[in-house]
């Protein structure tokens, strides 16, 4: 175990290892601490989607710039992460939703996104197996450069590339405390010894709250249990991710052919409940077969539980803490950590390695919750 590092990153999910890669590439000495194995938290449980269609400008901008990075990530990292751009089809079910979509598309276009409103007749040309009547579709939006990638391989690719640049990744290592002096981070205590450092990145997902508590910082994040199911492999039927904010459903067909998707669990409670529920299975299979009736005949193989680390405005908490110097927040992704990870790791690296701040980091700082005017992200599913 190393005794000294420039930066200690807590959490071996995609955001932790992506930040480790970017920092190590910038020449810093980095250690990643993961209490289980790489991608064991939300990253490895996620629905794998990569979306740029958001209702807030910050998320849209982070996502657009992340996709630009995803496009050449396999070659940058020297490993195929199975990134595929089949687009995201967002179904609208009411006039009210259509108006919100028009507003979102206008903002997204202003930020340079290739996105458009589809009328009902165009929807089937993108996903032919949908039952438009059954789901009461009145329109949709489509962005062809949205897509998905393999979250496991992305995490491993970042981790391998980080190691090549000299980073140390220590799995099965638990953080037990963080020491500060004059409100500045000085060391991290772990189950395998103490590491002296002046920077700590809290990328611990649903456990980020407990890490922040170690230095006396209170964060408003809450864990929400989410479930995902996967079917057997099928011949390719469609490439787009289909989502609906009304039904809360999302589903796509992965490269290997399986349908993977999720929906909010009926009567969900906040907390770290890990057992998958039958009520999710019922609700998901009933809704999914209403969207795509032919899936009635398809077997589901498995379903699992993961967590959204949800903030009051459904947007991440990023950047250095205003009171504890050297403590970097990188959590509260509210279900969107995987897709935003390339740009998040870049912004945090620019801040730590080059002291360069950015308007996004400023606007997504923890201190925004002290004010009363929160900008809510509305485009959330699952």
């Amino acid at each position, binding site marked *: 175990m190393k005794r000294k590092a420039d930066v200690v990153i807590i959490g071996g999910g995609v955001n932790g290892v992506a930040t480790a890669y970017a920092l190590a590439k910038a020449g810093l000495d980095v250690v990643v601490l993961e209490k289980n194995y790489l991608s064991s938290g939300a990253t490895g449980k996620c629905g794998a989607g990569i979306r740029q269609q958001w209702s807030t400008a910050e998320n849209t901008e982070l996502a657009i710039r992340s996709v630009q990075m995803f496009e050449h990530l396999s070659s940058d990292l020297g490993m195929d992460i199975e990134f595929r751009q089949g687009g995201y089809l967002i179904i609208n079910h009411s006039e009210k939703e259509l108006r919100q979509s028009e507003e979102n598309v206008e903002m997204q276009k202003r930020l340079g996104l290739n996105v458009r409103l589809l009328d009902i007749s165009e929807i089937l040309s993108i996903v032919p197996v949908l039952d438009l009547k059954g789901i009461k579709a009145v329109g949709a939006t489509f962005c062809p450069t949205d897509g998905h990638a393999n979250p496991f391989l992305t995490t491993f690719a970042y981790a391998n590339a980080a190691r090549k640049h000299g980073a140390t990744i220590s799995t099965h290592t638990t953080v037990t405390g963080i020491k500060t002096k004059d409100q500045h981070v000085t060391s991290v205590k772990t189950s395998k010894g103490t590491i002296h450092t002046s920077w700590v990145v809290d990328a611990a997902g649903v456990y980020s709250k407990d890490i922040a508590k170690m230095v006396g910082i209170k964060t408003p994040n809450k864990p929400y249990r989410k479930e995902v199911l996967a079917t057997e492999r099928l011949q390719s039927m469609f490439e787009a991710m289909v989502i609906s904010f009304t039904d809360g459903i999302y589903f796509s067909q992965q490269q290997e052919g399986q349908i993977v998707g999720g929906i909010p669990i009926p009567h969900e409670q906040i907390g770290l409940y890990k057992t998958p529920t039958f009520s999710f299975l019922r*609700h998901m299979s009933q809704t999914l077969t209403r969207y795509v009736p032919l899936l*009635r005949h398809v077997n*589901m193989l498995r379903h699992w539980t993961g967590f959204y680390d949800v903030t009051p405005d459904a947007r991440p908490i990023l950047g250095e803490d205003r009171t504890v110097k050297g403590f970097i927040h990188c959590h509260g992704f509210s279900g969107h950590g995987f897709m935003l990870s390339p740009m998040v790791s870049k912004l945090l690296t620019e801040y730590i390695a080059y002291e360069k701040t950015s308007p996004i980091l400023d606007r997504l700082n923890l201190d925004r919750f002290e004010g009363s005017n929160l900008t809510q992200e509305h485009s959330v599913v699952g």
Partner: protein
Amino acid sequence: MKHHAIVCRCEDITEQDVIDAIHQGYTDLEELRRKLRIGMGPCQGRVCISLVKKILEKETGKKVSVESYPTSRPPVIPISLGALAKKTRGENETKS
């Protein structure tokens, strides 16, 4: 010598694929599963996981504990979405 025996029938993974991944640094059953997709097919790991455990022990010389076995995911056998979606007796159409 190449080891061509199939270890995971669902995903067509050979013993050699497992050995290669271990030597690339995937030395945890869960990480091997995520790298190779072993245990993610219709058998849900019943065929492959204990074989992969033996290979991992042989290659690393370390005992693999039963606690580190990948999580078993429901359902136990594949089940159609149609069967899951079916309304049970007495269940109101509008309730779902």
